């Protein structure tokens, strides 16, 4: 029997047969994208970050440190009482008007975390939010990579 090099037609039956394999391939690649270790070589040290809080914003609103840094946050409330609660680390501090509150912690968890006001400070209080990045934001890159994978998978496999 001669060996045929022609491709099998893209029929619904062929497509359905290829589906479990495609799912397995997608899930395997997804795990690789999400979990493959990436070295981040930044040196850790001592960091002091002064954050001014007023009128529903932190200044700076975006803060970056290296994994393993010993971080001291100095929160200065410039108008009314403000707080700072750091998601992922579960730590918080409170500063009275005109006062500075300090808190020291070790940035042991890499990633990007929101910090938000923990003291009712006015109408926009629930939306007074800042961002702390511990190392490069690999989580965002990983999920964006998974998004690319999901786009191709959806386009090619989920069409039926």
């Amino acid at each position, binding site marked *: 029997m001669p060996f045929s090099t022609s491709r099998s037609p893209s029929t619904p039956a062929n497509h359905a047969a290829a589906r479990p394999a495609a799912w397995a391939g997608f899930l395997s690649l997804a795990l690789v994208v999400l979990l493959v270790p990436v070295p981040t070589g930044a040196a850790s040290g001592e960091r002091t970050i002064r954050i001014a809080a007023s009128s529903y*914003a932190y200044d700076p609103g975006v803060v970056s440190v290296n994994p393993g840094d010993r971080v001291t946050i100095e929160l200065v409330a410039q108008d009314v009482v403000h707080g700072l609660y750091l998601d992922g680390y579960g730590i918080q501090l409170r500063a009275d008007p005109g006062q500075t509150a300090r808190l020291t912690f070790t940035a042991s968890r890499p*990633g990007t975390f929101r910090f938000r006001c923990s003291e009712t400070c006015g109408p926009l*209080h629930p*939306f007074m*939010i800042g961002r702390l990045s511990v190392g490069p934001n690999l*989580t965002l890159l990983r*999920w964006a990579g998974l*998004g690319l994978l999901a786009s191709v998978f*959806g386009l090619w496999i989920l069409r039926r």
Partner: protein
Amino acid sequence: MTRFDLLRSPFLARLLRSRWPRLILSVAALAGFVLAIAAGLAGTPVGSRNFGIIAVWIAWWAALILVAVPLAGRGWCSICPLPLPGEWLQRGGILAPAARRRGLGLRWPRRLRNLWIQNAGFALLAISSTVILTRPAVTGALLLGLIGAATVVSLVFERRAFCKYLCPIGGFVGLYSQVAPVELRVRDAALCAAHREKTCYVGGPGGEGCPWQVFPAGLTRNSPCGLCFECLRTCPYDNIAVNLRPFGADLPRPAGRRLDEAFKGFLMLGSALAYSAVLLGPWGEIKLAAFRVGTPEWAAFAGGFLAATFLALPGAFALHVAAGRLLAGPRGNFRETLASYSQALVPLGLAAWVAFSLSFVFSNLSYLWPVLSDPFGAGWDLFGTAVGAWTPYLGAAVPTLQAGILIGGLAWAAGLASRIGHRLLGDDQRTSRRALLQASPVVGFAFVVTVVQLWLLIG
């Protein structure tokens, strides 16, 4: 596609045919809204201590967007208290309609039978939302205004014209109800066609004609049906089914899509992105600009929002659709192609709303327990929960959940775009390649939107 008719269960059939469950749930929801209005207008101006803000924009919103819409579609519309007083007045009865309807009963103007007013209403709410979400008095006045408007419209126009053509929340729910795994349809359309009296539409001994002005045999998607189940009571042939079905079964349907529906999709997707940036971002100036309604900076914010959702987003999407037509070879009408591919915005937009709401809801849900005990912020402690400390829930898990939901929505949108391409161009070996080429830029658009939303929420 697989369906399971819930009415095969005698218990569920009895439950859905009875008017009592819906009345009880509606009255409970009305009581909650009346309390929210009272607390909003007469309670503390501190939003996080006021039942009006927390119950409506945290508890109700969470229940609506995270549970009710994805799982029950227009289930909320079925028990929504906003049109209730108007409906009671219009039909002259609370549980069942009286023999003679009240009000002028005018038909809704033909030229306005579309979603443009709903779109404009939602856009108006969106540009004022930072104030609505944080000022109890504004929330109270808004709810009161919506009930008042629904009542007036019910007394002037026939049936549920307010819900169908005006309610900004109804438009939102209607769009995303298409993904829900529940639908109301007829069992045998031929039976309906042969039924001369059409009691489901005009009313009969069992009840009134469809309040949503829907002929059930013509239903091909969930958006127009308010799930009031009145047709179950008026159909003399027991020909109505309430099916469980796969998620998103309404969506891959290229024909008959309109631009007002497409723009609903753009508006909703744009609003989810804008809310994520304004409310959850670290940019204080934008928050203040959105909050100071009536000032020049608010005008700039509102102008930017409207330009982004009504011009930039649709423009970018149209360019991607045009690129797809260029790649695959133009076929059919561009407007129809654009409207068809806009269905891909439905899972994308719903995922964006769910992801946004997860962060918003779980970081503020702990405010609910104190306001249950002290709805007006007047120092009460009805249930012993008034002095509860603010605690964000699921703080570490929320970003992963958000990212997973956004990626799921993207995969769904990509699959949908591909299916739409194949339905538009054909699914044989020759046309399949062209269909994939045509859908690819739309998928690219969805990918970029998802990455932007990922950056806003977890970046």
